[in-house]
């Protein structure tokens, strides 16, 4: 064959004659060079990390490090303790996340209400976000987990799990409400104008037009906060909830060895890295859509 097809939207299917001095066939050459790039990248990666690994395990103190952090038998003992304890963390962040998404949305909507009548609501929502973003989360956890039960008010729950969920919800709602608010503000005012011009009330415009677009846009940052929440569930170990971190502390103290902490670290890696990659995929998708929409 002495020609090649151009391809693309303007391709008429005609063969364009391939002159010897002209451009070479593109596709094969690109395939070959792509394969070569991949192989080079693979080889250099293996060499690079192989070298680092070799240096680490041949360092003079490596046996001590291995004994203290990567101890095989302690690893085997602590995994059956620690992994089930993670179920408590899963319950914590699942229950808290649902409450956070609801409370934060309410706060963001309150803060977005226009007009002088709603000033107290805006003030309340703004003060909430300021206060709970300013105070370290661990303080809120202590205040609720130790302080409130100590009041011994009849009927007030004493479950530490309860206060753990409430504390995490209070702290994270402040951040998440700001994320929602940014999303609401990113929807162009002409969208609300279009909705109102059709006779929709302010609430209907918010409910059917503004919020669906706002929430869609902030899903990646919401997931980021969700990752943060997952990790911060270990903070509630300080008020006596036996979750993964507390369990690994117990195992660490019993074996006088840090391997249980490495097990815990690995559990968090396994759970959060896929979520982080998923966030990347969503962001890339949004970017493609945005670029397509901008035309």
């Amino acid at each position, binding site marked *: 064959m002495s020609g090649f097809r151009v391809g693309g939207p303007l391709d008429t299917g005609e063969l364009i004659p391939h002159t010897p001095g002209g451009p070479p066939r593109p596709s094969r050459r690109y395939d070959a060079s792509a394969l070569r790039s991949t192989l080079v990248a693979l080889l250099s990666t293996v060499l690079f990390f192989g070298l680092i690994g070799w240096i680490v395990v041949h360092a003079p103190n490596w046996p001590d490090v291995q004994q203290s952090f990567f101890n095989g038998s302690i690893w085997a003992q602590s995994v059956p303790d620690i992994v089930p304890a993670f179920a408590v963390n899963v319950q914590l962040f699942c229950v808290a996340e649902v409450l956070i998404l609801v409370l934060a949305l309410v706060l963001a909507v309150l803060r977005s209400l226009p007009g002088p009548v709603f000033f107290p609501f805006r003030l309340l929502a703004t003060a909430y976000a300021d206060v709970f973003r300013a105070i370290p989360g661990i303080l809120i956890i202590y205040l609720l987990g130790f302080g409130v039960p100590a009041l011994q008010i009849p009927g007030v729950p004493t479950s530490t799990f309860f206060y753990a969920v409430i504390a995490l919800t209070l702290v994270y709602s402040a951040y998440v409400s700001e994320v929602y608010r940014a999303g609401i503000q990113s929807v162009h005012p002409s969208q609300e104008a*279009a909705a109102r011009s*059709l*006779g*929709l*009330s302010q609430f*209907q415009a918010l409910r059917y037009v503004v919020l669906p*677009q706002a929430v869609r846009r902030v899903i990646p940052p919401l997931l980021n906060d969700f990752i943060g929440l997952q990790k911060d569930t270990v903070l509630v170990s300080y008020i006596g909830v036996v979750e993964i971190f507390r369990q690994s502390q117990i195992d660490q103290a019993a074996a006088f060895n840090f391997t249980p902490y490495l097990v815990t670290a690995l559990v968090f890696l396994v759970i959060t890295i896929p979520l982080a990659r998923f966030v990347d995929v969503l962001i890339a998708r949004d970017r493609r859509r945005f670029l397509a*929409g901008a035309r």
Partner: protein
Amino acid sequence: MTAGTERPEGRALGVEQVWKSFGDAQVLRGIDLELADHDVVCLIGASGSGKSTLLRCVNLLEPVDAGRIFVGGAEITARGVDVNRVRRRIGIVFQSFNLFPHMTVLANVTLAPRKVLGLSEGAARDAAVVLLDRFGLADRRDDYPDRLSGGQQQRVAIVRALAMDPSLLLLDEITSALDPELVAEVLNVIRELAGGGMTMLIATHEMGFARDIASRVCFLDAGVILEQGPPAEIFSHPREPRTQQFLQRIVEAGRM
């Protein structure tokens, strides 16, 4: 005496001494305008002359500073008027379409009939399909707006406004954001609506279209209606020097 009884029958829109400013900028400086039923009135004038602001005031998207606006005989600028009820009867189509990007064409058109008029899903859908069909959009009903051309998007926006069965339609430079070859398909929709007796107030830069379709043309300049009359009169024998100047510039730009 109520506002309704002092208005003659058949008056679709009355604008009386409407003033509007944004900060220090006086955009509307005492507008008076009357539309009878089935009138098609075109507002022409330079950018910034107040055409869009006037339309937004009529739809109560902007509160007026002074003056009164009547729609179908009732004052809509009066205290205690339910703006949501008023807007049901006034359709507006914007320059930038403003379709809801997260909804299909059909959902865009049926949202207000369902949520505002309380139509059932099926009834709203049937009515929307008839309208979409009439304007050549039947096969696009399940598409999202970003799959549509600008001309199609604007026609959907017109259908969305019509789905509320408005007594008055406001069109705010609806072809200004379109590629030139897409302008005709949108203007043809408006021609058809005018032929069907729709009362319309149209801000436009399309002079040929205005000459063609308008029962009356109003020239706005610096927030007042400087001159108005039948299109033949305004375009052929403008009285005011400012009108002559404006039309001269339009002709020089090759747009008429």
